[in-house]
């Protein structure tokens, strides 16, 4: 606990005055719920849970936190798989899920304005009867749209548009000192949130900072027109290098929405094969690739499909057993779970039911030799530690970079297994970093390792910015080597 009992009561009463009695808690049972997430990261209790309903309430809580110099950690659902909302230094967990309004859909400039508590489920329902689509992750419907964007998540149009921070038009943010600032064109006009430039782009002060520099209260995100034709195909194959080569060719063709390249173990996990049994069996294909594309007309659709089939033939020449089929056809066999690949967001029940799920998710070069080498190294490490080799990768932004990650499930009931997972993640990080892979949603321990290895002037600049914005060091302390 950070405070003496008297101070604790004093803060508690002041928080109650700001947000109302029922939206503050220091009950041990509730603090416990916010002390951990599904990852292997050690738990750490907050002192208070506060659930504000308005920007004004957030500002008041921030001022109070400065007065008492207690940490604040923003939180929506804690679903980030990086341990990022575990309050490393205690303090207030500011749960923003009551702020869940979709404030506006601008059909001219194609963006939405949302509050932090808006989930992918909310957004999908909202857009259902419009002409627009958003970009969904392989994550549960209760995950936060805003957190996903601020943390550079990867979604099912990321091949077209890049990671989600790249589609933010602007934000409204409460600084650690309590000022409310607008970033983007909305700084000039309340009704224009269409872009970030051409003024100096200050959005970078908040993206990937994991709540260390501000609490974002509104965000404008791009949406895109729905296309009348959309289809999903899948490939099963054995030759990784050639499969990856055609994945890259299709990514660069500028005709695809999304391409996922996964190990067959990942497909088994999605299909509900129990923990420990999602392993590759002799004779099976090693790799599954899903291809998502859309078109404005039937002719355009057919032309794209022809290109995909021709590209697949190149794989078939090297890997004669490779097959190409439709996701809908596979769903006839495998059932609804497989169909969910086309209907994001969705919850992979079998991923979570053992209590633990983690990854070292990285963005890295698209170089073929590096990817193939990375898979081999990572598989050896995972096998050594006795976990399932569930690889899940995605080509990003037209093939400009690559998302390389694993979905690793484990049992949180066994401390030995949790410790083994920590060792595995560290070893994966160390080896993949050498290949140029950078962990996104960077856990605190990985950030510390990066700081040891990267340009020291970058670290100094980051610390200077943090000190300037947050002189009392109260916003999510303990991240990126900043106490």
């Amino acid at each position: 606990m950070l405070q003496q009992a008297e101070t604790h009561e004093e803060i508690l009463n002041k928080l109650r005055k700001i947000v109302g009695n029922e939206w503050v808690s220091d009950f041990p049972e509730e603090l416990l719920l916010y002390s951990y997430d599904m990852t292997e990261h050690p738990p750490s209790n907050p002192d208070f849970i506060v659930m504000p309903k308005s920007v004004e309430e957030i500002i008041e809580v921030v001022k109070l936190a400065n007065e008492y110099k207690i940490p604040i950690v923003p939180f929506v659902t804690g679903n980030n798989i990086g341990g990022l909302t575990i309050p490393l230094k205690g303090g207030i967990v500011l749960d923003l899920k009551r702020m869940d309004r979709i404030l506006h859909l601008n059909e001219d400039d194609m963006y939405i304005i949302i509050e932090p508590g808006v989930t992918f489920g909310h957004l999908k329902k909202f857009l259902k009867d419009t002409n627009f689509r958003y970009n969904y992750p392989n994550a549960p419907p209760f995950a936060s749209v805003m957190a996903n964007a601020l943390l550079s998540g990867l979604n099912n149009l990321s091949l077209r548009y890049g990671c989600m921070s790249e589609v933010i038009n602007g934000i409204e943010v409460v600084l650690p000192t309590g000022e409310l600032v607008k970033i983007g064109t909305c700084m000039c006009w309340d009704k224009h949130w269409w872009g970030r430039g051409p003024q100096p782009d200050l959005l970078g002060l908040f993206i990937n900072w994991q709540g260390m520099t501000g609490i974002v209260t509104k965000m404008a995100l791009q949406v895109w027109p729905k296309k009348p034709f959309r289809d999903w195909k899948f490939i099963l194959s054995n030759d990784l290098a050639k499969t990856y080569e055609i994945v890259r060719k299709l990514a660069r063709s500028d005709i695809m929405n999304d391409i996922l390249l996964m190990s067959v173990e990942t497909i088994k996990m999605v299909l509900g094969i129990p923990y420990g049994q999602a392993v590759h069996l002799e004779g099976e294909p090693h790799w599954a690739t899903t291809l998502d594309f859309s078109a404005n007309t039937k002719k355009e659709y057919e032309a794209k499909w022809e290109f995909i089939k021709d590209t697949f033939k190149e794989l078939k020449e090297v890997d004669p057993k490779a097959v190409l089929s439709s996701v809908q056809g596979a769903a006839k066999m495998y059932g609804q779970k497989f169909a969910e690949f086309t209907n994001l967001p969705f919850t992979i029940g079998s991923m979570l039911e053992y209590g633990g799920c983690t990854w070292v998710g990285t963005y890295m070069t698209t170089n073929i030799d590096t990817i193939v080498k990375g898979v081999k190294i990572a598989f050896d490490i995972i096998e050594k530690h006795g976990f399932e080799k569930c690889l899940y990768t995605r080509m990003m932004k037209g093939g400009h970079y690559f998302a390389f990650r694993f979905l690793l499930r484990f049992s949180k009931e066994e401390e030995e297994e949790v410790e083994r997972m920590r060792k595995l993640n560290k070893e994966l990080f160390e080896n993949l970093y050498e290949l140029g892979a950078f962990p996104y949603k960077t856990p605190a321990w990985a950030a510390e390792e990066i700081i040891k290895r990267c340009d020291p002037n970058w670290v100094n600049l980051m610390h200077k910015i943090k000190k300037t914005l947050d002189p009392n060091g109260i916003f999510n302390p303990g991240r990126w080597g900043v106490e």
Partner: protein
Amino acid sequence: MEKYEGPTDIFGIAIYSALTRKMEEDPEYRAFIENLNMNLIVELDYYPLMIKFEKDKFTITRDIEDPTVIVKINTQDFLDIVDGKSSIIRKFLGRKMKFKKGITKLFKVYKIFSKMM
């Protein structure tokens, strides 16, 4: 979670899931499957699978024993049927689906797969 008792190989899971689901949806199909008594081997180019039909149950395994029927088909041809791009009859007549043993069970095999897909 419900205990999973099916196969864990990628094609076995597909056949097991489709058969189980169809049996739940269609009582007539269920009765038909539950009255079969044979070891049906599906020889895919990746690996062979055995669907063992016994009184009131079926199991799918990669351990082949005492085959009653052996059907050979490429995975791509199998998936084309699933996809609706082709049919069992067409694949059979085009010799893309071959009976290496047990051709007399042709209609039973046809019924198992055509209804399942």
